[in-house]
């Protein structure tokens, strides 16, 4: 069966400009989306945890809305529907990348806000109490004590979200954004070498996720508060029979 796999076509696709370009576009869209969504989600999470009822209501409605609407529908709505709703969006500046960014970020913020809320809730309330007893303001306690500790909890599910988003960017091909999957589909349709075209795309996805996993492991180590964990990397362990 492998005889039908043309290595030459595979390498050619793998190193072709549309693939590179598509992969970069997917990666950019994923990073930009996750970044913006995390910032928005942080404030949504603070709102969800606030004492103010109306604020909690706003967050509830947001999360309900953007978790219920399918991502593809939202994408089509933002790209095709928004310009009909608002004339401003008919301008030439309104590109597919921007539309995909808006739709995915709105969607992703709803998921991220729940992850961040869980992270903030996981921090022992005694930490905030100790900060207040020292005379720290709420903002400083949040920044110096609670957020760093919440990040440790947030990292693994956020890495999951990154991977999910990376795959969701392929939906943007329906609004003519030629990211990685779009590039491979076009490549395949040239000579119907689906096997090679899709394998090459899979290699890119594998590569991106591999880099992410290494990055995640490093980040998790950075947010583990044990001096020995770090020391082990710089100073060799003492031999057991040291006398």
């Amino acid at each position: 069966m492998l005889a039908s796999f043309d290595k030459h076509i595979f390498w050619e696709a793998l190193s072709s400009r549309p693939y590179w370009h598509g992969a970069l576009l997917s990666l950019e869209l994923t990073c930009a989306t996750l970044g913006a969504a995390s910032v928005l989600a942080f404030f949504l999470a603070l709102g969800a945890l606030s004492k103010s009822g109306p604020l909690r209501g706003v967050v509830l409605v947001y999360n309900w809305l953007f978790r219920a609407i399918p991502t593809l529908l939202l994408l089509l709505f933002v790209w095709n529907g928004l310009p009909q709703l608002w004339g401003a969006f008919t301008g030439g500046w309104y590109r597919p990348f921007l539309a995909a960014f808006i739709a995915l970020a709105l969607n992703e913020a709803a998921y991220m806000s729940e992850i961040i809320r869980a992270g903030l809730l996981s921090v022992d309330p005694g930490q905030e109490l100790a900060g207040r007893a020292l005379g720290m303001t709420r903002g400083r306690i949040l920044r110096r004590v609670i957020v760093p500790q919440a990040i440790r909890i947030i990292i693994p599910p956020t890495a999951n979200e990154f991977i999910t988003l990376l795959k969701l960017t392929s939906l943007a091909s329906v609004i003519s954004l030629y990211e990685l999957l779009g590039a491979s589909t076009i490549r395949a349709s040239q000579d119907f070498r689906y096997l090679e075209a899709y394998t090459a795309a899979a290699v890119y996805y594998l590569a991106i996720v591999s880099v992410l996993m290494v990055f995640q492991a490093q980040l998790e180590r950075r947010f583990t508060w044990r001096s020995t964990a770090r020391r082990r990397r710089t100073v060799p362990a003492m031999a057991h029979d040291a006398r």
Partner: protein
Amino acid sequence: MNEPVLRAEAVSKSYDGLSVLQGVTLEVGRGEVKVIIGPSGSGKSTLLRCLALLEPVDDGHVWLDGARLSGVREKELAPHRSEVGMVFQRFNLFQNMTALANVMCGLVEVRRLKKAEARERALQFLERVGLRDKADNYPEELSGGQQQRVAIARALVMRPKAMLFDEPTSALDVELVREVLDVMEALARDGMTMVVVSHELRFAHHVASSILMMDDGKIIEEAPPAQFFSSPSHERTRRFLSLVE
């Protein structure tokens, strides 16, 4: 007349309609050590939190060094909290900071000291609780007793006018209690004004200027240790002491 460092005047507090403090009045003079005992739910911890300005009182007043601070708005209250040191049962050291960073935190974030100066002072106070060599360790790597001593240093470094201890040894293994009590005794000898919620009766006997018995949100008895232990005037106190000892 010598102004008391801490004063609670007819303080009342309730949570969800449940009355926790019912008109508690308490004065702590400079250099005095007051030990509060009483059954759980009697309002000891709540009283301490009100004195630490961590809980607003429903009724009555809290004074710190002659200034009335009950009813002061949250924003203006924060700096005053640093004038009262608070030590918790579960230490509550910042998990994401080394022992040194924990002690430096208040100096840098509240007092706005330069890092180098804060570090210098923090090291002095770690030395004072005998933990200078643990400066770079994280709380997770320290024993309970060591964590509590770091927590004491973190509060002390702010040079508070009074120190409040909320059952500082109840979460510790038996053999670690002593090292924390030693630090507290040294502190009392140095003339620190202290309010201690604790059932370490020997410590109370040694160190306290007076012992207070709380029950049902009220202080029902206050007396110097000798009198408190030998001839408690209240039946409730007698019963409680026989259970604790």
